[in-house]
Structure formats: C-alpha cells, structure tokens
C-alpha cells in the first residue's frame, strides 16, 4: 500500500480549481486499485486490511490530508448517493463502491477476477 499526495508541481494548468469529481476520476484511473479514505475512519482501515490481506497493493488517498479533500469528499458523496463518502474503491479506473459492495463482490467471487483483470493480483 502506498500513500499518494498529488504533486502540484509546475505542470499545473491555469485553472486554479478543477472539478473535484474530475480529479477523483483522474486519480482513480492512475492505478489499478485506488481507495479514497479518511485517516481516522475505522471502516477505511478495515477495507485497507482486506485488500492487503488478499495481497493487493492499493493506492490510498487520505482526503483529510489533501488540501482539496473536502470538495472531493462532497463529490464522492454525490456519486455514491450516501451520507458517507469513504471508504470508496476504484478498480481499474471503474467505481466498485463502498465497503458493502466490495465485500459482496468478494463473497460472490467477482472481486478476485476484477483484480486480476486490472493487474493488481497475480495468481
């Protein structure tokens, strides 16, 4: 698991504020398994442990440590349609969902093929 903080750097375009949802999607497509989390959230901790237990190396973005985290959190809430934005998992750039969806897909056996497809897991 590696934690990523966006490097603002010199290539930043002229617009100062990007659409948070766009940013979320951009970040999500950069790695095979992306988790948006909050450092104090215990359910996020559980989901991280789940992936680590499977041998996956997810990319984690802690929204409370990101300067634009608040907006992204709101965008995720709208995306998920729930009052809690985190934890939320993207695999292969596609939204999988919150803890319940991830667990459901793991139990019914669809998570592992998805991970393999995204290249996050090798047999």
């Amino acid at each position, binding site marked *: 698991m590696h934690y990523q903080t966006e490097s603002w750097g010199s290539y930043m375009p002229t617009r100062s504020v990007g659409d948070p949802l766009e940013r979320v999607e951009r970040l999500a497509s950069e790695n095979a398994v992306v988790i948006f989390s909050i450092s104090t959230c215990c359910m996020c901790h559980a989901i991280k442990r789940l992936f680590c237990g499977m041998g996956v190396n997810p990319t984690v973005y802690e929204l409370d440590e990101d300067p634009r985290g608040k907006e992204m959190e709101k965008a995720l809430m709208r995306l998920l349609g729930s009052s809690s934005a985190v934890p939320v998992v993207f695999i292969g750039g596609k939204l999988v969902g919150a803890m319940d969806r991830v667990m459901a897909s793991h*139990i019914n*056996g669809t998570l592992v093929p998805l991970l393999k497809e995204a290249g996050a897991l090798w047999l």
Partner: protein
Amino acid sequence: MQNFIEALTNSTMYCSSSFIRGDEGSRNQSRFSGLGELEQSTGFHHEDAVNLSPGSFFGLKSNSVSVVTNLQFGGLNTSVSSSDITSATGVDTGQYSFQKETMPVAASFGNVHFENWGDSGMVDNSQQADTSTDVDIDDKNQFQGVQSGALISVDSADRSKAKTGDQKTLRRLAQNREAARKSRLRKKVYVQKLENSRLKLIQLEQELQRARQQGIFIANGYSGDQSHSVIGNGPLAFDMEYAWWLDEHQRHINDLRVAVNSHVGDNELCLLVDNVMSHYDEIFRLKSIGAKSDVFHMLSGTWKTPAERCFMWLGGFRSSELLKILGNHLEPLTDQQLMGICNLQHSSQQAEDALFQGMEALQQSLADTLSSGALGPSGSGNVADYMGQMALAMGKLGTLENFLHQADLLRQQTLQQMHRILTTHQAARALLVISDYLSRLRALSSLWLARPRD
C-alpha cells in the same frame, strides 16, 4: 323499610363474620350474639341486599341513616354518612362488602349492657385518634350528644318516633356507632394491606423488567397472536421478534426435514429451501432495525442463549465457522462446487478478519480519544476540551452500527452464495445441518443452566 334494614343487617353479618379477626376482644362477641338473635328473629332477604349497586347503595345508606335519625339521634345523620362515604370512595374492589360493613345496625341489642357501650365508646375514641379527623369529631359529637341527652336535636317530623324507649334506642345507636367505627378501622387496615401489595407488585414488575433487560432469554413466551407487530421499539421489542422468528424458523426447518426424508421432487424442495432463505433475510432485516434503536443490545447478544453468545462474532454467527461445520456433510460435491465452497470459505474468512481489524482500530481510536487531554488528578480541566472529546468519541461510537451492519451483510451474502453454489438437494441438507448445529448449541445452553450445582 324495616325489612330492608333487617335484610342489610343480615348481609352485614355475613361480611362481618368473615372479616373480624377477633382482635377486638369480648365486645364483639356480645354484639354478635345480638346479631345472632336478630338473624333468627327476622326473615332474610339476602338477594335483595346483594343486588344493590354501589350508586344506589349510597342513597339507601343515607336513607337508613335517616331512619336512625328518626330514632332520636340527630347528630348521627349527616356526619356518619358523609364520613362513611368519603372513607368508602377510595376502595375499588370489595367496595360492596365495605358498604355493608359500615351499615349501622339498626336493630336492638337486648343483652348488651350500658357500661359496655360506654366503655367501648371511650376506647374506640382513642383508637380512632390516628384516623380521619372528621370521624373523631363525629364520634365525639355523637358521644357527647348522647351523654348529655338534652342536647339532641330531633327532627320535627320524627317527634312521634321519639316516644319509643329512649334508653334502648340510645344503646342501639351507640352499638351502631361502635360497629361503624370498627368497620371503618378494619377497612382502613385492609386498604393499607392492599396498597402494600400493590406497591410490592409494582416492585416485582420492575425487577422483572430489569432482569429481562439484563439478558434472561425470553423463550417463546411472546410468540402467538401479536407476533408480527413490533411492540414499540428497543431491546425488548427485538427480543420478542427474535423469539417469534426462531419459532417460525423451526417450523420451516421441520417442513424441510420432512420433505428431504420423504424424497419429494426438486420443485417442492426448492420452494421450501427458498422459504428458509427468505426467512433468514427477515432476521437480518430485524437485526438492522434493532441495531438502529440499540446497537449495544445487538452486540451484547443477550437475546441469544449463553453458549451461542459465547461463540458469537460481531453480533451473530461466524460465517467461516459455519462453512467449516458444513464441510463433510455436503458430499458428494463436484470439483467446481468444491472449489466454490473453498473460495467462499477463504473470502469470508478474509472479510471477517478485515472487519475484525476495523473493530480493533475503532477500539484503539476510542481509547485514544478518551485518554487524550487531562486525566487523573488534574482531570477536571477545560470543559470545552471535555465536550470536544466526548463529541469525537460519540462520532466514533456511531460507526459501530456500520460494523454490525457489515457483519450481518457478510453473513447474509455467505448464505446466499452457498445457496448459489449448491444444488437444491445439497442446499436443503446444508440448511438442516446449520439449523441442527445451532439448535444443539441452544440445547447445550439450557442443559448448562439447569445443571445441578454443588
């Protein structure tokens, strides 16, 4: 009127004999012998007396009291009736018998001495000292009125009746007063006893309620007519719902067992299996409702039997355990099925571990929050800090419900996946195995609780 009074007198005697504890000494004896004479001498219309309603009784009472007034005892009229009525209104049960008790006996006591009356009068006054003041004043008034004799105000209409033997009348009236006073005393004692037992009943009910909430398993007592209606909210409601659910579950399982043993067709078996599965969905739904109202009650598992509770995991059974139990009972399995079951066991184990670690993190985080800031001797400190701490801790506690929810989802999904992997027949057997295992665990609890202690 006279007949009526005699009838009432006789019914009074019926009540009195059952009530008098004989603690008032010889005075009663003499009085009762008087009543005995009365009973023999008069005709007895017990039914007439019994059929009176309390409402009409009041009216009748005042009538009869006014008859007594006619016998030259004016002071007795309003005061006695009012005191008797006021003292009688508090009693709901047994009211009727009390009314009869306080009914003054308007018959003659030929063999009662005058001194006896005077004596008992004095004693009764002192006994009445702690009772209602108006009664005391009544008695004193009556007593004084009788003693002086000359101060009796007689109704103008009753002057003709005044000619009948004064002394006898006065004695009779005094005896009436005695009886009335004694009856009132007895009534007070009885009412006091009733009040005490009522308080005791309330106490016992409260204890029972407390004991229930502390987790004495309510076995099927509440199932039956109102099974489906959620009785209010809260832990007790869930316990009742669970008891009902368990009953229904056993019924479904029995049907399934019969079907499996009698080798019914697949279609019918499929229907029965689906019944059990959707019934499982029902309990998960109930649990989520219960968790919303009291998550700690759900997590504590007091609604389960002790042995079940001991091996409980995050508010219910442990899916991976269940699959291990199923293990050999599912033979024969195809290779694909075998792999499916293995994967299922593996993934449920992983999910369980993840949730468990999440719970540990929660506990650690809560501990950190509560122990931050000043503790111990310098503890009191900043109120704002304390409130902030508590708010934070409250937020963390709120996630417990989510964990419980996820754990239940895990259980539900494991069952459903198992159903998907197996054939109808295998699924039926699997459900029977699971159910039997849990029943045995429950039976073990009962045996354990009932074991002889040294």
